[in-house]
């Protein structure tokens, strides 16, 4: 019997003033004792809701409206709060999505361990030395025991996350739900926490349901992966199998968005479109509008989850041969290995891809438009009676040339955002010079600075903060046109429409009078790009323009930026922490570590042959599903429980 069994679960949000939403729809799955299961999906797909339902933590207006959750033979859905309480934390514990806020701010870390222990005398046998148990767990997550005496606000994000992980394990639970446990942390820190987590899981043998939108991480960590789309599970298979071949086109699209930046030719896929509105009824396949391989039947028939190979998938193309024949069949069917009853289609080809080859990058470009020479920036902060100075940027030099993309790679705090502020004249360097075609940017004031900004525009990270929620797109795009290009209202509107068409929002007339709230994240980012292009700038600074977007559309936005910049001969500084996107877009890469440029050169050279240890660490932190998967330890509980599905060594040959 599995440890956790979810059958036909339905969760519905019924807000007072809008239509009910089926956030989780007929979901069934199991988690075996000691198994590590990944639950993958993009924002809004229902994965966190599912997690909260399993923990019975749903709050109004969300409620379980059907199905059953059984934990260790007990039907959790029927228990009331008093009956659930002894099971909580002792059997099922969790690490929340934003651990930044999941610790009580006014009590010490020790007290937060102590109250969990005190609430469960039955699980601990009454006598537990809080300091000993908590201290031991903190050491397991590489924290000092002294952290016990601290308050949450005295800890960094990464430390809080480790505390949350240690806290989840304090009662030796049999099941831990991890809901995006490392979102928002620096990649290197993420890597470290996840490695530690996997190790602990093997050692202590608890089962894990790992919720994430980050496919690479899930694929690497989990024994089995479930992919969720629009409230349904669309594919559920051993990670090793899924890495090799994805049965659902959505999974294929997600996995296609990963690649090794060190390869000579890099190709990433994306899935245009957006998830369906779940408050409406849909007859056909929910993925059909975005599906690259959809057939006519997909529009009218809702596929069911059918067993395929060693797992399940939800796609009409995988259902019985009779139906396939009726729906026009699938091209080039080949006999599936393993299971005779359920034939397997060939791996889905992603139609939309963004690719780059070894020789397509690294052009020289023309004369530099922007020259940064020996720039340094020191911040002085008041501290008590004296000052402390922080050197945010040290002696950085580079140039930006028309039609070329330079990537500035580093983690938060590396000084990359400071460099952006220096280039735009928001701040002045303490040392060195910033030149725009002979003008000293660091000496511009007021109106000269305003005129200069016409030539240097920004693409922001967060598409939800970058557009004023109360202003229409026509207004947002019209402002730079009127101010910088001196257009009147009618001309500005006409140009705004052209710009929207340029960034793929077509027909523009439909969009001009919309508010940002009526657009998806990807569409908003297109508007942000259009606004940056409006005053016909010569330099574009894009600060992590894709990091807040769903994985399935990131490459789409990158491709758009690529086309626009090169067609218009704009010099772009692409700021990122992600080497893969830098590889796809940039001609040259600069790696920044603690304010200093540690590596600088043509993209392929820097990424393909990293010399600096810091660059190598960044490279190592990139998840590479299917290529660097840690082999499961022989005889681990995971393998025993799931019949040995979790080994990389079982990967079919040829990959």
């Amino acid at each position, binding site marked *: 019997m599995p440890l956790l069994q979810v059958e036909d679960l339905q969760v519905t*949000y019924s*807000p*007072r*003033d809008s239509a009910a*939403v089926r*956030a989780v729809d007929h979901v069934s799955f199991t988690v075996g004792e000691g198994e590590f299961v990944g639950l993958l999906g993009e*924002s*809004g*797909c*229902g994965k*966190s*809701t599912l997690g*909260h339902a399993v923990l019975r933590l749903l*709050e*109004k*207006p*969300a409620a379980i409206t059907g199905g059953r959750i059984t934990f260790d033979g007990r039907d959790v859905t029927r228990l009331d709060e008093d009956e659930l309480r002894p099971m909580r934390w002792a059997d099922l514990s969790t690490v929340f*999505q*934003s651990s930044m806020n999941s610790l009580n701010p006014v009590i010490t870390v020790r007290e937060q361990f102590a109250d969990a222990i005190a609430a469960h005398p039955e699980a601990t046998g009454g006598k537990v030395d809080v300091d000993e148990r908590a201290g031991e767990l903190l050491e397991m997550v590489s924290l000092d025991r002294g952290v016990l005496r601290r308050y949450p606000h005295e800890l960094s994000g990464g430390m809080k996350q480790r505390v949350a992980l240690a806290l989840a394990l304090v009662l030796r639970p049999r099941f831990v739900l991890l809901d995006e446990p490392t979102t928002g942390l620096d990649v290197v820190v993420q890597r470290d926490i996840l490695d530690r987590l996997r190790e602990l899981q093997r050692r202590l043998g608890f089962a894990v349901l790992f919720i994430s939108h980050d496919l690479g991480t899930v694929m690497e960590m989990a024994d089995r992966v479930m992919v969720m789309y*629009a409230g349904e599970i669309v594919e559920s298979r051993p990670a090793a199998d899924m890495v090799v071949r994805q049965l659902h086109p959505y999974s294929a699209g997600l996995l296609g968005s990963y690649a090794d930046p060190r390869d000579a030719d890099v190709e990433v896929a994306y899935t245009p479109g*957006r*998830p*369906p*509105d*779940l408050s409406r009824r849909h007859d056909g396949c929910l993925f059909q509008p975005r599906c690259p391989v959809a057939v006519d039947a997909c529009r009218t028939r809702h596929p069911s989850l059918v067993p395929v190979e060693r797992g399940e998938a939800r796609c009409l193309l995988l259902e019985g041969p009779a139906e396939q024949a009726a729906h026009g069949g699938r091209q080039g069917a080949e006999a599936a290995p393993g299971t005779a009853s359920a034939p397997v289609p060939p791996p889905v080809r992603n139609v939309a891809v963004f690719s780059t080859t070894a020789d397509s990058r690294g052009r020289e470009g023309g004369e530099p438009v922007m020259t940064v020479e020996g720039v340094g920036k020191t911040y002085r902060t008041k501290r008590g009676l004296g000052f402390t100075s922080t050197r945010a940027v040290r002696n950085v030099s580079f140039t930006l040339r028309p039609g070329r993309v330079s990537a500035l790679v580093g983690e938060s705090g590396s000084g990359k955002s400071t460099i952006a502020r220096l280039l*735009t004249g928001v701040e002045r360097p303490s040392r060195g010079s910033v030149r725009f075609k002979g003008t000293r940017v660091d000496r511009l004031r007021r109106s000269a600075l*305003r005129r200069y*900004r*016409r030539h*240097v*525009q*920004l693409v*922001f*990270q*967060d598409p*939800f*903060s*970058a*557009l*004023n*929620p*109360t*202003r229409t797109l026509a207004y*947002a795009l019209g*402002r*730079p046109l009127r*101010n*910088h290009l001196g257009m009147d209202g009618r001309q500005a509107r006409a140009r705004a429409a052209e710009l929207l068409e340029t960034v793929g929002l077509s027909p523009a007339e439909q969009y001009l009078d919309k*508010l*940002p*709230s009526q657009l*998806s*994240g990807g569409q908003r980012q297109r508007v*942000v790009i259009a*606004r940056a292009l*409006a*005053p016909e700038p010569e330099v574009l600074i894009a600060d992590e323009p894709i990091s807040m977007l769903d994985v399935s559309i990131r490459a789409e936005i990158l491709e758009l930026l690529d086309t626009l910049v090169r067609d218009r001969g704009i010099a772009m500084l692409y700021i990122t922490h992600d080497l893969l996107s830098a590889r796809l877009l940039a001609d040259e890469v600069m790696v920044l570590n603690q304010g200093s440029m540690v590596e600088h050169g043509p993209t392929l050279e820097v990424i393909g042959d990293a010399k600096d240890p810091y660059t190598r660490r960044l490279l190592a932190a990139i998840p590479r599903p299917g290529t660097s998967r840690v082999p499961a330890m022989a005889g681990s509980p995971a393998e025993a429980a799931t019949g040995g599905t979790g080994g990389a060594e079982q990967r079919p040959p040829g990959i």
Partner: protein
Amino acid sequence: MTTAHGNATAAAPAPGADTESVGIAALDAGKSRRMPGWFVILWRNGKCRVGLLMLAAFTLVAVFAPLIAPYDPRLEDFATSEAPSGAHWLGTTAQGEDVFSQLVHGARTSLLVGVVAGVLSTLIAVAVGLTAGYLQGVVDEVLSFFINLGLVVPVLPLMITLAAYAPVKGLWLIIAVITVTGWAHGARIKRAQIITLRTRDYVTAAKFAGDSTARIIAYEIVPNMMSLIVVGFMGSALGAIGAEAGLAFLGLGDPQTVSWGTMLNQASLGGAMTTGQWAWVVAPGLVLALLVTSFTLVNFGVDALSNPHLRED
């Protein structure tokens, strides 16, 4: 309920600041109908609707007071200290004036003070709050100091002292005193709000689009804090109505103006309680309470919109 947001609305992730979402909601709501968006939203809230209707009733009474009141409120032609009767629904005062007529005219004073002092102190609060929050630095330090000072100084003693020194007594003096002493709270809240809003990327974007600071404040920031400004205005108006009644009750108001506060003052001095004229004492307090209630009910609507935690499930 971050989860509810994140998952329920598949297409639109949780909006940023609450006041911003109100702005969008208001614009969305306004599109479909002829009414202004904020009105549609307020109207949908049951409590708020009752409050708006009550407020409308008070306004009508105030505007048409001369038509509604049976007598001139200052006319001293009647028998003194009479109990309620058919001719004098609420009796007469110790000077022989009709209490009901005074009550009707009192609505004018209260609403006038509420609206004028409310608008003026909201304007000061917005101006000080916006300047302090947007400019920061030394300007902010200085203005914040004045805001904090205005918050802690005991308001009524200050009002009394100011009113006592003033050479002329009158309604406008009362309004001025109330305005001068009542802006600090609103200014503090608006300053805090603008500090969050000014770091939004769209403000930076507007700078890069070449917009001036004034335009950025007027077009990018203020529309996103409208609900806060409305709540602030309601609060100031409420405070002003109460303060006027209190000052008038203490005998510091304008003796020439008929207001509910002066009515209570005269009822107390005129021995309404010893002569058993309950209507003279109860009526002004009750209508004052009803007026305050109507403001509070409207505020429920505005408040609940700007703070999802207060929304009823």
